[in-house]
C-alpha cells in the first residue's frame, strides 16, 4: 500500500475525457455522423451536397451533447446540489485549472480529429473544384448588382488546405429567401441565437440557481430547439428540393461554396461554444471569480 507518488495528472484527465466521452461512440453522437457518411457512400458510391450538409448538421448536433458533458441537472433544489458532477471533479486531488485545461485540450484534440476525418472523407469522395486561383474580388455586374467576395479556409482538388474566395451577389447574400444568401443568414442567425443562449443562460443560472421558472427551462432547451430547427429546415428542403416552398428552401446547400462556409461557421461556432462553456466550467471550479 505504499505511496507511488503523483503522476502526470493532466494527461491522465485528457486521456480520460477522450476515451470515455469524446471518442466513445456509445456516448458521442458525432460518431453517428461518420457512420452515416460511410453508409451513404457505400450505398451510392458517391455523396451529393445534401448528404454532406446532413453530415455537417449532425456534427453540429453532436457538439450540443459535448456541451452537456459536465451538465446533468439544472433543477437545483438548493445551492449545495446545483451541479453534482462538478462536485465530483472538485473532490479530485487536482486543481481546477488543470481540469479546465485538460478539458480544453481534450476537446481541441477531438474537434481537430473530427474535422481531419471529415476533411479526409470529403477529399476522397467529393470532386472539389480547383480553388487555387485565389483573389479578392469586388465588382459590379452588368445589371448593377455588387459581387461581394468572401474569404475562408478550404481544400483544393488535391486536398491541400488553403484560403479560398467565394463570390456572392450582394442582393442574394442579404436576401433571406434566396437559396444562396439564405444559407448564410440562417446559419448566422442560429449561431447568434446559440451564443445569446449560452451567455444569457449561464448568467441567469449563476444568479438564480434555484430558479425553476419557465424562462430557465426555455433557455435550457433553446439550443436543442435551434439545432432541431436546422434539421427540420434541412429535412424539408430534402423532401421538396425540386419545388419552391418558400422559407425552407433558403437553407439548402446547393453550392459548394456554401458547404465550405457551413464548415467554417461550424468550426468557429464550435470553438466559441467551447470557450464559453469552458468559462462556465472554470467558474464552477472556482478558478476564476
Amino acid at each position, binding site marked *: *500500500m505504499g*505511496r*507511488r*507518488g*503523483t*503522476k*502526470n*495528472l493532466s494527461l*491522465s*484527465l485528457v486521456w*480520460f475525457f477522450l*476515451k*470515455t*466521452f469524446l471518442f*466513445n461512440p*456509445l*456516448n458521442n453522437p458525432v460518431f453517428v455522423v461518420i457512420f452515416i457518411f460511410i453508409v451513404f457512400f457505400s450505398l451510392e458510391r458517391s455523396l451529393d451536397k445534401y448528404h454532406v450538409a446532413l453530415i455537417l448538421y449532425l456534427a453540429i448536433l453532436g457538439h450540443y451533447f459535448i456541451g452537456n*458533458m459536465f451538465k*446533468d441537472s439544472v433543477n437545483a433544489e*438548493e*445551492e*449545495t*446540489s446545483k451541479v*453534482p*458532477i462538478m*462536485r*465530483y471533479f*472538485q*473532490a*479530485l*486531488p*487536482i*486543481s481546477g485549472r488543470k481540469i479546465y485545461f485538460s478539458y480544453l485540450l481534450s476537446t481541441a484534440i477531438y474537434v481537430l480529429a473530427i474535422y481531419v476525418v471529415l476533411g479526409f472523407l470529403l477529399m476522397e469522395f467529393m470532386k472539389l473544384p480547383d480553388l487555387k486561383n485565389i483573389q479578392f474580388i469586388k465588382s459590379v455586374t452588368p445589371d448593377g448588382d455588387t459581387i461581394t467576395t468572401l474569404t475562408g479556409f478550404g481544400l483544393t482538388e488535391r486536398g491541400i488546405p488553403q484560403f479560398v474566395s467565394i463570390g456572392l451577389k450582394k442582393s442574394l447574400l442579404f436576401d433571406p429567401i434566396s437559396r444562396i444568401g439564405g444559407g448564410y443568414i440562417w446559419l448566422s442567425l442560429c449561431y447568434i441565437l446559440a451564443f445569446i443562449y449560452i451567455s444569457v443562460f449561464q448568467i441567469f443560472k449563476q444568479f438564480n440557481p434555484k430558479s425553476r421558472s419557465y424562462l430557465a427551462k426555455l433557455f435550457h432547451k433553446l439550443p436543442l430547439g435551434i439545432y432541431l430547427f436546422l434539421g427540420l429546415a434541412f429535412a424539408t428542403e430534402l423532401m421538396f428540393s425540386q419545388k419552391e416552398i418558400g422559407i425552407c428552401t433558403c437553407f439548402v446547400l446547393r453550392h459548394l461554396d456554401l458547404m465550405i462556409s457551413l464548415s467554417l461557421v461550424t468550426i468557429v461556432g464550435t470553438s466559441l461554444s467551447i470557450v464559453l462553456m469552458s468559462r462556465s466550467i472554470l467558474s464552477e471550479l472556482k478558478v476564476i471569480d
Partner: protein
Amino acid sequence: MSIMDIEIQGLTKKYITLTALRNVSLNVASGESVGLVGANGAGKTTLLYILMGFISYDEGMVKILGTSSANIDAATKEKIGFVAEEISLLPWATLLDIAGLYKNLYGQWDKDMFSRFLEEWEIVADKRTRSISKGQRRLAELAVCLSCHPTILLLDEPFIGLDAVMRIKVLEVMKEMNSQYGTTIFYSSHILSDIEKIAHRVIIIRQGEICLDERISNLESSVEKTFVKYYGLSREETALSGE
C-alpha cells in the same frame, strides 16, 4: 494531545434567505469515527460541503487535515475520501474507466482492495454508470472512495439506495478501515442504528446548531432515544424519519 483531522470554530453559513449553520464548533481527532445526525435541512450537507471546500462560509474557521477548507491543495485532497448524498459518478464512464483515472490520481490507490469490492459487492464495472442500478452506483462510488485509502472519510448519507445486507457489508468495511488503518470517519446518516455500530461519537445538529456532541458510550440511552429527546419526536415519528 491528539491530532485533530477536523477543526471547526464558530462556523456560520448564510444562504440568501436562511442561516444554514450558526456558530458551529467541533473537533474530530485522527482515527475517530463520528456520526452526524439531524433532520432534513438541519445543515449536515452544508457542513460537509464546507469541509470539502465546495462552498464558502461567512464566519469562523474550518480546517481539515490541518489545511483551511477554503484552500485545500491537491495533496490534501488525495487524503480525503468523499461521497456525496447525490450519486455523482460520471454517467458516461464505466467504473473501470473511473478506476483507471483514480489509479493515476491517487498515490495510495489499492488495486487489490478495489478488486475485492467488485467481487464481494457484485458490482457491475464494465457498463456505463448511468446504466446500472442506483444501489450499484452507490456501491461503486463507495468502492472507488475506499480503495483510495483515504486518511479521512467524509460521507454524506452513504447508505441511500442500499439494501440492508449491503449496508451491513459496507458498515463492516468502514469499521475495518477505522480500526485497522486508523481512518477518520465523519459521516451523516438518517439511519440512527448504524451510528451506534461504527461511531465513537455522535453529533446532533438542529436548525444549523449543534445541540449535542457526545461519545456514544457516555449517552444515557440509545442514539435514537437521544435524537427523540433533542428533536421532541415520538418514537414512531423517529422511526418514520429513518429509513
